[in-house]
């Protein structure tokens, strides 16, 4: 553009120069004429001046014409010789179109090679957004496919796949429909039949929260993929199917194939004149997960059954929960369940508005939410082992320190008395039995001990050392970090309140030590803590990816290498104490609870927890590792508003162990003591 302006400008200058030149000659001639009047010259008279006038003006005309030709040639020079490459590129992009064929996404397999997600080819009828204006065409389409007219209309109006992209009207249409549409293009303007591969879930909703789901690429993702700063990402185009949650999202770059491309030559009306060599589509790589289908299925079924039983028993508030099982020796997650769940297949071919509303609403308990990594809950008593370790580390207590629980604790004076969950009192206690019986008084004393010590935040430091308050780094999206409250946090959090409310109080420390109040953790964080307790301080990064397998060619396998994220060092005597305390929970705290584990060949160590919230049913926790003498698995479960941990989440954990060791729970015993 600037070149053009420069040339036009130069031409104007030339033209102006010519005009001035002619004018000057005119002036000079006029001047000469005056002199001519004064000085007699040989050539005089009006004839000559007329002739010179014509001559001058015709020269002017010549200059005019010459300038035109000159300007045109100069401009052609700049366009055809200087900027020619640029225009040639534009001409080339005019006459070529790139036709793409989508590549199948990689499959997702469990650790034993069982297909969790695969693909199937299907024929889909799609329509351009403008088709909605043509009632006749929509009616024809409806008759042909055998759908109600209104359904066709709604499908075409649906913008979920993007405002500009084609809308899927029907998938899995018959060959007859395809043939009819192909043979009558004039009847079906804007309608196209596409060969697609669609996500197929052979096991239905199994592991839905691990797998996630796919959908049409969003505008933001599309813009980011085209952003020059995004150097490593895949270049997407509108309408591409991408992972939007779970492993589908996390390992999008692995699962996504490379689409095939063919350059065709077209005329201005889009008719293909010729085509050039094509690149075959290359399907995405398969992802092998650490998930074990059998354990996963058991976890989901057990979770659903426990919730159902609780509801059947009259507690209608209970409608959600989750469970996770992890290999403590390498961080592999072998099962991850969240309830309520959903079937990822509702997302294939674009989810309907109604389905989306149902899946994302609060009233249906957010089925899309993966509670293991995104759910935030008070840890309740499951945190007590960490309190005991902190007390030993900071010399707040020794293994020999004795406590007395009368059921009501007045360590901060009579006005600030607090109950143990067992109002009758546990009597004489020490650290180990404090864990086993989950005695609150023991931990009130520890909380107070920290509050009055010169290391008032030692408890928080220990919690954080075990990974609370920070993400575990699991390879799943939307992980929450949780919260370990301290004085600074409280002061800032209540910044509109008076100073005495914002101040850290002794009660905050005692709440923290029994895992109630402001502390928030994810079930996965707690599972990792128990995995760390099981391995005596070595914490692996939890992960669901086992390996990546190229689906074409050599089938090369890239193994995921486990990684230690934290090493917590404690005296082995401290670990011994905690482990004995946790074994006590299983075999001593409650006879009914013990009955569920004595029928197993492996020994178990674990902890119940019951997160209280005023005016609601408590949320029950149960976390265990097994075998307790040579730990292999840590398993955590939580049932929202499902009552005590010993009568809700415990069953789920036991069922998962049953699936791992092929030793189903045969006990029907129900804990009546309210062990927490």
């Amino acid at each position, binding site marked *: 553009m600037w070149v*053009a302006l420069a*040339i*036009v400008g130069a031409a104007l200058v030339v033209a102006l120069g010519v005009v001035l030149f002619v*004018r000057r000659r*005119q002036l000079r001639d006029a001047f000469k004429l005056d002199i001519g009047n004064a000085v007699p010259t040989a050539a005089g008279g009006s004839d000559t*001046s*007329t*002739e010179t*006038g*014509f*001559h001058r*003006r*015709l020269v*002017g*005309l*010549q200059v*005019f*014409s*010459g300038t*035109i*030709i000159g*300007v*045109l*040639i100069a*401009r*052609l*020079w700049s*366009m*055809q*010789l200087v*900027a*020619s490459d*640029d*225009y*040639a590129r*534009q*001409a*080339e992009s*005019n*006459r070529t179109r790139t036709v793409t064929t989508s590549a199948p996404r990689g499959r997702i397999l469990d650790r034993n090679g069982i297909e969790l997600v695969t693909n199937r080819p299907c024929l889909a009828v799609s329509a351009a957004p403008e088709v909605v204006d043509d009632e006749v065409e929509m009616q024809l389409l409806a008759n042909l496919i055998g759908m109600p007219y209104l359904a066709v209309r709604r499908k075409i109006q649906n913008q979920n796949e993007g405002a500009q992209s084609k809308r899927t009207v029907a998938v899995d249409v018959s060959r007859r429909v395809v043939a009819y549409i192909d043979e009558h293009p004039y009847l079906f303007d804007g309608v196209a039949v596409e060969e697609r591969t669609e996500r197929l879930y052979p096991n239905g909703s199994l592991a839905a929260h691990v797998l996630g789901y796919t959908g049409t690429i969003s505008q933001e993702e599309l813009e980011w993929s085209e952003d020059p700063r995004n150097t490593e990402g895949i270049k997407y185009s509108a309408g591409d199917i991408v992972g939007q949650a779970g492993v589908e999202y996390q390992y999008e770059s692995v699962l996504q194939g490379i689409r095939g491309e063919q350059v065709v030559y*077209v*005329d*201005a*009306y889009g008719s293909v*004149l010729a085509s050039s060599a094509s690149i075959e589509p290359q399907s995405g790589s398969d992802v092998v997960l650490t998930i074990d289908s059998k354990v996963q299925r058991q976890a989901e079924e057990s979770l659903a059954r426990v919730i159902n039983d609780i509801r059947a028993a009259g507690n209608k508030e209970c409608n959600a929960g989750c469970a996770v099982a992890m290999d403590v020796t390498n961080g592999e997650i072998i099962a991850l369940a969240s309830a309520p769940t959903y079937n990822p297949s509702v997302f294939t071919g674009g989810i309907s508005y109604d389905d989306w509303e149902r899946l994302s609403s609060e009233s249906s308990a957010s089925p899309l939410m993966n509670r293991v990594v995104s759910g935030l809950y008070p840890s309740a008593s499951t945190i007590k082992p960490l309190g005991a370790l902190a007390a030993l580390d900071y010399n707040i207590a020794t293994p020999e320190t004795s406590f007395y629980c009368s059921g009501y604790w007045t360590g901060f004076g009579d006005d600030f008395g607090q109950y143990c969950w067992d109002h009758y009192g546990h009597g004489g206690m020490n650290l180990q039995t404090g864990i086993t019986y989950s005695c609150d008084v023991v931990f009130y004393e520890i909380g107070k001990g920290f509050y009055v010590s010169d290391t008032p935040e030692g408890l928080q430091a220990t919690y954080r050392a075990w990974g609370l308050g920070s993400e575990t780094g699991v390879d799943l999206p939307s992980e929450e970090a949780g919260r370990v409250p301290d004085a600074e946090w409280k002061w800032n959090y209540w910044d509109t309140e008076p100073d005495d409310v914002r101040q850290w109080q002794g009660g905050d420390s005692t709440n923290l030590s029994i895992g109630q109040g402001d502390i928030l953790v994810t079930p996965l964080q707690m599972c990792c803590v128990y995995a760390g307790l099981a391995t005596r301080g070595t914490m692996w990064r939890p992960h669901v990816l086992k390996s990546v397998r190229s689906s074409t060619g050599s089938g090369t396998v890239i193994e995921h290498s486990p990684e230690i994220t934290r090493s917590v060092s404690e005296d082995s005597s401290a670990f011994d104490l905690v482990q004995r305390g946790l074994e006590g929970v299983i075999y001593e705290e409650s006879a009914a609870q013990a009955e569920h584990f004595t029928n197993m060949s492996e020994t178990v160590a674990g902890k119940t927890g019951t997160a209280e919230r005023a005016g609601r049913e408590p949320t029950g926790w149960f976390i265990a590792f097994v075998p307790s003498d040579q730990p292999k698995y840590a398993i955590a479960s939580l049932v929202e508003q499902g009552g005590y941990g010993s009568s809700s989440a415990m069953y789920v954990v036991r069922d998962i162990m049953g699936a791992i060791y092929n030793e189903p729970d045969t006990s029907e015993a129900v804990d009546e003591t309210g062990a927490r």
Partner: protein
Amino acid sequence: MPASDLTSSPAQRPLGGAKGQGEAQVQRRSHTTLGDLFYLPQLIPALLLITFGAVVMWSASLNIQAADFKRHMIGIVLGLVIMWFVRAYDYRAFANMSTALFVFDCLLMVLPRIPGLGLSENGITGWVRVPLLRISFQPSEVSKIVTIFLISSLGAQYNGRIETLRDYVKLCAILCVPFLLILVQPDLGTGLIVLVVGASIIIVSGARPSWVWVTIGMIVAVAALAIVTSMTPGLPHVLKDYQLNRLIVFVDPSVDPGGSGYNLQQAKIAVGSGGLFGKGIGNASQSGTGFLPEAQTDFVFALLSEEFGFVGSAGVLLLFGWMIFSTITLAQRMEQPFAKLVLAGIATMWSFQVLQEAGMCIGIMPITGIPLPFISYGSTSMVIHCTAVGIVQSVWHHRTKAA
């Protein structure tokens, strides 16, 4: 008033003039050359352009259905025949016929409006179907030649200097009549050619520069006013929307790439992608496959630039330059003001049409629907420009030979 004081005897007796020419030929038969019979510096480039135009149109006919090579050739033959007859006819006969020319000019413009004769195409009522014969033509094209004669015959009577403002205004007013009549067809493109050609003749006739500058200033003011009122809702829209869009797009082609800007953009891509030697005959991916509409008429320069590259496009422009220069050179050599003015008018017509047609293809002029002389598809245009060549040759043919 026709310039009766300037009468020359041949103009009164055209046949006598022809006879005189015949005598001259007899006298000089012994060493008559081709250069004596024809004004070659003008004829050669014109014939080369026609030939090149035929090649371009043949290549266009390979891809563009609307470009009928046979019809183009018929137009060329018709044009050459008419050129031959016009050359023989003494142009000086028109020097005294200004009243008749004026009436004829006006009549031409009214023709398309007569029911049964008129034809409309692309919203322009500019076509006339000749009854009985199955041919139609554009009177506005004919009007260009008629106007050249009309203004020249009037301008010649001042013998090189228009003394009074009254005379100048009268000339301008007469020029305005055909211009306005074409404008209401509406055919702004041809109207502008008539205006520029007429103005050029008036200037060469000896109008004082100060008057000309004032006139140009007034035209610019009126044009600006027309544009502003057309853009303002509520005021009368003098320019049609498409004309306004072309102007807007000319200023910024990216405003509406799907509409008027699209054509300009595609034309520039066609020209630019031609490179030095072009893509070759029949290989115009832009003009040949529909990206550039009207590639055989309005955008023919883009077509030839794409197929023949800079060599072809610059070559065509140089041929035009050669032809125009020769025509003006001849005007210099002629003694009679009428001959000078007619030649100046014809030279201006070619210059301006080349500027307009080629200029719009490369984005330095707004888009108007006018043809490139000798090359664009369309017989009326071909015949008219051949007629113009014939007139130049007639001037040469009827020149006063040096003793």
